[in-house]
């Protein structure tokens, strides 16, 4: 027998079974690449590899005026396009001390909540699909279509709205808007219990998500997990409550908090948020004050030199926009604190020891949107 003389290299010592989940993988919803190290089916470690859709939005923002940045923010987290737009507008209005008409505030809030509903519907659809219940995907998209139609009628876009402008909104509401939103709420209040019957209560679904991917409150804060994912761990991080903006001070709503911190609790937070969003819209939709849809703005917007930060609550968590201005018409530096990036950072921590199937469930419960991570 031949003796092994060559010293063992690191690779031979611990043979790890690596799997590349992504960049083209059905459950990563985009071009996220997770290098997963496995032991049998159990995840030992995972490493996110990013950049497949990196467009350098922060660099592009440095060349654009404040009005032009808005259309770029659409493309961060495309499922919260409206909230992303709003963040930039709020900074500009706040710094330039523009008096925004009440009507605009109402419109923005209603739109943001519709966007949140829309985003959560898509998330619900994909969550079911990731767990193997394909039918949920079609139900979610079917109901989402109503919101997209409402958007299309008023904003002209279905996904990338670009509806906000500094000082107001692009167009006034469409005359049909109020009626359509009311019809939709009526419709969706009937459909949402169906979601529960189909998926939430299902014993297979419960077993797949309960106790999977437990994230403690301390970890949630330490990792900076915000949005429904953070609130599923009991981290009270709703910007709408903490630092209300637009018309949120005028409405009564609950911040959904759950203590369990597992995939199921993140799921339930989102389902409950859909109910809350409908409550918010219902409180506002009948009381939209009359008035102009935009404040008078100068044609060229220049922010005085300084640093500005604005936080808004998008469908996936807290979006922070950090603008450094040197007084020119374009910002000196724009940084987007994207919620998905922070949420992704915890994936390795909580999916260790879980199975591949659990990893898919955990990923679905965090609801990643990859363009927001890559920017």
């Amino acid at each position, binding site marked *: 027998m031949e003796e092994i003389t060559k010293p063992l290299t690191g690779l031979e010592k611990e043979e790890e*079974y*690596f*799997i590349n989940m992504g960049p083209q*993988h*059905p*459950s990563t919803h985009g071009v996220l690449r997770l290098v997963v190290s496995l032991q049998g*089916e159990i995840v030992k470690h995972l490493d996110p590899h990013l950049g497949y859709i990196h467009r350098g939005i922060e660099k592009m923002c440095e060349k654009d005026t404040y009005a032009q940045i808005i259309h770029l923010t659409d493309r961060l987290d495309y499922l919260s396009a409206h909230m992303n737009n709003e963040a930039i507008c709020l900074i500009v209005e706040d710094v330039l001390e523009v008096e925004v008409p009440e009507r605009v505030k109402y419109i923005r809030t209603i739109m943001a909540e519709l966007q949140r509903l829309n985003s959560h519907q898509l998330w619900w659809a994909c969550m*079911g*699909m*990731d*767990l*193997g*219940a*394909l*039918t949920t*995907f*079609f*139900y979610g998209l*079917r109901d989402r279509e109503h919101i997209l139609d409402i958007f299309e009628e008023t904003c002209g876009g279905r996904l990338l709205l670009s509806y906000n402008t500094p000082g107001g909104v692009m167009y006034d509401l469409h005359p049909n808007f109020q009626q359509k939103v009311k019809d939709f709420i009526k419709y969706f209040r009937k459909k949402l219990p169906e979601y529960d019957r*189909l*998926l939430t209560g*299902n014993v*297979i*679904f419960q*077993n*797949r998500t309960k106790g999977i991917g437990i994230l403690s409150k301390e970890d949630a804060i330490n990792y900076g997990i915000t949005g429904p994912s953070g609130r599923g761990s009991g981290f009270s991080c709703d910007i709408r409550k903490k630092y209300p903006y637009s018309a949120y001070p005028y409405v009564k709503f609950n911040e959904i908090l759950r203590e369990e911190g597992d995939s199921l609790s993140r799921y339930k937070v989102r389902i409950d948020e859909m109910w809350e969003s409908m409550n918010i819209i219902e409180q506002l939709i009948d009381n939209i004050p009359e008035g102009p849809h935009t404040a008078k703005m100068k044609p060229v917007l220049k922010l005085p030199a300084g640093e500005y930060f604005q936080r808004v609550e998008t469908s996936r968590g807290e979006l922070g926009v950090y603008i450094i201005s040197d007084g020119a018409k374009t910002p000196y530096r724009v940084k987007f604190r994207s919620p998905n990036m922070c949420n992704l950072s915890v994936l390795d921590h909580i999916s260790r020891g879980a*199975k*591949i*199937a*659990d990893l*898919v469930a955990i990923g679905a419960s965090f609801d990643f949107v990859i363009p927001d991570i890559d920017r």
Partner: protein
Amino acid sequence: MKDLWIYDFTSLTAAIESWLESTFPPFWAVTFEMVIIGLAFLLFYALTGLILVYAERRICAFMQNRLGPNRVGPWGVFQTIADFIKLLMKELVRIKEADKFLFNLAPFIVIIASFMAIAAIPFAKGLHAIDFNIGIFYIMAVSAMGVVGILLAGWSSNNKYSLIGAIRSGAQIVSYELSVGLALLSVVIFSGTLQLSEIVESQADAWWIFKGHIPAIIAFVVFLIAATAETNRGPFDLAEAESELTAGYHTEYSGIKFAFFFLAEYMNMFIVASIAVTVFLGGWMPLHFWGFESFNHIMDFIPPVIWYLGKTAFVIFLMMWFKWTFPRLRIDQLLTLEWKYLLPINLVNTVIIAFLTMMKWHF
């Protein structure tokens, strides 16, 4: 009326056989007989596959508020044929560093296993290729062979996803074979025979699911669950698990080889549905109720083949309904379901059935 050939195929098949034997020498007569049956089954196989694929797509579309295939032909009925042509013309991708022989062999094992199983299924009185006296045993043995093909496919593809899928499938089938066997055993105990035709005959007065009290219903439900698992269909499609393993064991297959796996999946579904029908739902026997003579008489007029296909379609529909409603199980939950729930229930159930049969308490 009852002597018409569509009600009893015995005389028809006997006539064909005697004609063959009288015209040709014995060797050729057997050969021709085999060829005819082979062709008939091949035709049946292809046709059923096409219909089932179409049906699945339509049914799931309706459940999902969609139209489903509606472009090729009226109501899209030729969609599957178009798909089949597409699959035929697709390039067979050669996988680098794959085990070529096993890679090519695997789809054939899978499809042959399902093909062999059809042979023993009684479609109507006198309409079956071969009437084994150990029919149930034969079908179970042969249909379980398909997993070898799946394991080979996963192993030889040189793909990590495929391997995981294949291993999952192995674990799944090894455990669920037990439940299938035990569930079928309950009716074997009732009827006292392994021969499929005799099991059907024993249900002439009423189906076993009605005759066997609650234990028979439990056995039927267990069989349905286990059989769904055995065919690797949702919610037990862990071997494919498209959201986890992209396509599991057949990730690397393309063209006609993929079509074989695809077809075999649907045929397996048909086979387990036919076993369920034959064993629990009276095979080709019409529905009878005690005391409704006129109703029973009307039921008798419906040809047995229709009865058989109708019942099979119903069971297949149930399985499709499962697939398009439930999320997928995780591998450990799958095994838990088998070893902690189905198997104990089944064992107790079998004992009860043995007791019932001993006391002659069944109808």
